[in-house]
Structures are given as C-alpha cells and as structure tokens.
C-alpha cells in the first residue's frame, strides 16, 4: 500500500514536470502543425537566461523566471518570421524536421560558445528548498511548487483556447485557414501569437524543470524524445491530453523504477508501445483542449 502511494505521489510529481516541459511542443505541433524539434533548444535558452539573470545579475527567482520567459519569446519571434513561416503546413514535415534540427544545432553551438559546456544551475529561493510531507511520504517543496504551476498552466491554457476570442479564432484558423482568412481573421498574426505562446511555455518549462533536467548545452537534444513521447501519447494539440499523457508516462516510469529498477528502461518503452497501440492517435485526438 505504501509502495502504491509512493508511486502515485512520485509519479504525479514527475508527470507534472513532464507536462510543463512538453506542453509548449503540443501547442506548436498540434495547433500549427510544425514538428518543432527546436522545442528543447527554446526551453534550454529559457533556462540559461534564468540562470544568468539569477546568478550574474542577482535577480530573485520569480523575476528571473519572468525575464527568462519574456526574453526567450522576444529572441525567438524573429525566427518565426524568418524561418518557421516558410515551413508551416502539413506537406513539409521532413523539411520541418531538418530545419528545426539545424536550428537546434546552431543554438547548441551558440550556448556552448557563450556559456561553456559545464552544468548551470538556477538557484532556488529558500522558500522552495526542503521537503513537504504528504502523509507517510515527503516530496521536495520545489516539486510541489511545480505541480501547482502545472495546474495553473493547464487551467490557463484551457481558458485561453476555449473561452477567449483568441482561442476561437485560432481554432478556426487551424481547421480551415482559407476560410478563416476569408472571414477576416489575420492568420499571420495569430500564428505569430501562437508561436510566442509555444516558446514561452518552452522557456517556462526549461526554468521550472531545471532541477530535474539540468542545464547544459546538450539539453536541447538529450530530452527531445521525452517531449515527443508526451505529445504523441497525449494527442498533438490537446492540452488535457498532454496533461493526461504526462501523468501516465510519469507514473509508468516511476512504477517501473520502484518495482523493477534494473529493467526500468524496458518497462517505460514497452508501456509506451502498449499505450500507443491502444490509443494510436493519442488520448485526446481532435480536440483542442
């Protein structure tokens, strides 16, 4: 019983971190149909900005977080105009893969040049250090904070996509770009905003997840499979799907490590195959949120 509880708590905590790191990719992939393999690179840029802001400029954690998200969005918006705009659309998936891999390489090389290959950290405020106990089990305070942030992000995105004008227009533009344009929806701006949303979420995830996925230049490449797994299981573009997928994968991974640690890797990928067997289009296919 205690083991089950442990798996549940640790699994949900890990799953929420996975969610917050991957949801940005779900947004770009699902809503804009761009296989954005540079997602990890954007998350990494966010993390590095936060690390620099906190360590070299001495900003407090919340300010560093905000600065990181804002700067990452600002820095990547020109990329949307210069690069991504050329590769939107379903017909060109391979081009998207190649272009975003190329972009990832460039970002990795640049970060490596600017910050060096050593690990970087984002110092946590005292408030987030230590552990909180949940009955018989204790989890790090930082994780509890990330779980909370994950829930806030989830609700915020749901509200944004389902309840606001922006969301309605966006869904219209995704479903039928030509019709949306004819109705006077300015798809170009809409896509730009969505791209900004995606990179902002990537940066947020990069900063919040840095305790688990430490920052180094190869961050951008190392974890891309993990992000893609979450999106594939969740169903691209589905916010609740991503959350469900992240939790499912988090719990699966944790259960594997608890029960058969020596075969944890098998367990995770075998489970992934089984899930994709049962839900070949992800948990929540075809729904925006």
């Amino acid at each position, binding site marked *: 019983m205690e083991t089950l509880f442990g798996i549940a708590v640790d699994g949900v905590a890990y799953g929420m971190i996975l969610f917050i790191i991957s949801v940005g990719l779900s947004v770009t*992939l699902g809503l804009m149909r761009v*296989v954005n393999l540079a997602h990890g690179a954007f998350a990494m840029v966010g993390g590095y900005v936060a690390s620099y802001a906190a360590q070299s400029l001495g900003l407090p954690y919340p300010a560093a977080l905000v600065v990181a998200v804002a700067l990452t969005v600002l820095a990547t918006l020109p990329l949307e105009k210069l*690069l991504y*705009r*050329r*590769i*939107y*659309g379903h*017909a*060109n*998936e*391979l*081009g998207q*893969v*190649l*272009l975003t*891999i*190329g*972009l*990832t*390489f*460039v*970002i*990795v*090389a*640049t970060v*490596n*040049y600017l910050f060096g290959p050593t690990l970087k950290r984002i110092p946590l405020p005292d408030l987030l250090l230590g552990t909180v106990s949940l009955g018989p089990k204790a989890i790090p305070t930082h994780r509890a904070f990330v779980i909370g942030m994950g829930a806030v992000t989830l609700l915020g995105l749901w509200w944004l996509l389902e309840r606001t004008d922006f969301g309605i227009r966006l869904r219209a533009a995704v479903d039928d*770009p030509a019709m949306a*344009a004819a109705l006077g929806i300015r*798809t*170009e701006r809409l*896509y730009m905003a969505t791209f900004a949303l995606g990179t902002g979420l990537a940066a947020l995830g990069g900063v919040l997840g840095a305790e688990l996925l430490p920052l180094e230049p190869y961050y951008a*490449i190392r974890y891309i*499979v993990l992000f*893609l*797994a979450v*999106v*594939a*299981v969740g169903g*691209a573009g589905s916010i609740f799907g991503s959350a469900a997928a992240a939790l499912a994968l988090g719990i699966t991974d944790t259960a594997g490590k608890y029960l058969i640690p020596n*075969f944890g*890797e*098998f367990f995770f*990928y*075998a489970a*992934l*195959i089984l899930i*994709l067997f049962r839900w*070949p*289009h*992800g948990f929540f296919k075809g729904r925006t949120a």
Partner: protein
Amino acid sequence: MMSATPSAATSDRTDAARMTASSPPLAAPLKTPRDLGWIGVPVVAVAGLAAFWLFPSDLGLLTRILAAALYVLSLDLVLGYCGIATLGQAAMFGTGAYVAGIAAVNWVADPLALLAIGGVAGGLIALATGALILHARGLTLLMLTVAVTQIVQEVANKARDWTGGSDGLSGIDPNPVFGAFRFDMVGRTSYLFALAVLVVALLVARRIVRSPFGLACRGVKEDPLRVSALGGSPKAYLVAMYAVAGVFAGVAGALTAVTSGIVGLDSASFSWSAEALVMLVLGGTGRLYGAVIGTVAFMAVHHILAATDPFHWMLFIGLFLMGVVLFLPGGILSGFERLAGLLRRKGDKA
C-alpha cells in the same frame, strides 16, 4: 501563412515531375527525359574507384561513408517509396551489426556469410516490429519506431555476456574475402568490399522499386485508399517494404561490424536513426542516389569541419542543414535536377 506554401508547392511539383518521368513510359511522351537512373550505378562505382585512387590514406573514413550510405539507402526505401516516417532505422542496423558480430566472434568467419546473417537478422526484426507498429501514422509511428530502437539498444546493453554491453562487442576478426583478400590495416580490402556491396545493393534496390511490388508501394504512399479499393492491403505492402529495408539496414550493420571489427551501442541509438533521416532528407528522398549523395555530403562536411574546428562544427552543420531546407527543398539532388532542367531549357531555346 500563405507565403509558406510556394516552397512546399515547388517540391511537390518536382516530385510529380519525377514521378511521371520514372514511371513506365505509357504516359510519358518521348520528348520528356527518359529514365536515366541506371547511369547512377556505374557513376557510383566509378566515383568510388576514383576515390580509392585519389584518397588512398582516407580509406577508413571512406569505408564508413559507404556503409552509412547503404544504411541511409535502406531508410529511403521506407521513407522515400512508402512514405513511412521513421526514427527507428538504427534498430535494424544495430540488430544486423550485433547478430553478425556475435556470429563472427563465436561461429562464422566468412565475411559474405556474415553480411547474409546480418541481413536476415535486420529483415526479421523489421518484419516483426513492422507488423506490430505500421498501422500507425505520423507522430505516433515516429514514437513507436523510437521505442523499438530504445528497446533494441537496451537489450544489447543488458545482454553483456553476448554483446559486451557498453564496452562494445570487440574481437570480430573475419576471414579474408573469398579467402584471398585480407582485411588490412590501411583499409583497401574493407573499402573495395564495402563499395562492391553498396553497388550491388543499389542495383537490387533499383530493381525492387521498379518492380510491380515497388510501384504498388508508391501507390500506397500516394493514395492508400485507392490501393485498398483495388483489393490490396496497404499495410501488407508497407510491412513487406519495411522488412526489405530491414534487410538492407542489417547488411549495412553487418558491413560496419565486418570492416571495423567492433560493434558499439551507438549502432542502435536514437541519434544514429536521426542522423540517417538528416542525411537522407539532405540528399533528397525517393531517389535512391539521394541517399548516397546526402551521406557523402553530410559525413564529408562533418569530417572536414570536425578536423578544422571541432569545437564549432555543430554551428556550421546546423547552418548547412537550414540552408538546404530553405534554398534546396527536396535535397541536394533536386538542386542538380533543377540545374539540369535549366540547362535543358536553354538548350531547347538554342
């Protein structure tokens, strides 16, 4: 948003043009260029031999390029001719390499037999996993192929007694080719052996994609509904081609094992799968020779940049990749084709 479409459209158009050009000449009028694809095989052979004379002290690298070209060729069979986007080709390559390597260490020493063993192993694993996963499409399929590769790699890591685990499987020491040509230190035998294997593989691959089976696979790629309406099973075609490609990848793995004498976990890694995709898209999909050109371009650029400035080669190769997507959608080979088209038009005018 609409500004995005031209590039995609051009690549579609060239795609369509190529399709009509290389399909049987029932619809193609005599004036359109005839299928000159057969020239490619002797060109590869001659270029390969020329490289042998021109770069006699780089044969180690060149051998690796040839084996990699064969591996990327196998990916072209599934991606270019069936439209299966996969990030799991290394599963077949790695299986072929490990099975051939284990056979070499324990039982068999003839290099040709080892290639056959690797091919069979690669084909079998492709058949088994393909039958399991090829009902899926898109991102789901991509993830399934990744998962298969990770499992293969983990099996290789766990079965240390057989595979050496992360230390690699060393001690592969094949007999001389045909009992006469020893695998020497300079790598002459390895290179010529690899070149011969690649040329034969190109010939076979050409036969396959031009056979009724190959054309049916293309049909599945273009319009699966029509194939099922005509009574064919799209999935059966896909699985069959996936298995055929698995044989090619397995042979490529065995070739690497035979020529380098060692197999490492990297041969069944995600990054090796991704690299194959990059090389193929770089060269151009659905053309067979695109695989060769992409591999040569990528590995040569990597080698030169890594030799001159290892710290920053990633920057340049990243820019190179982006440049190809933006300015040469359809790969390097499509650039040649466009150039040839331009010249031809000029010739027509004259």
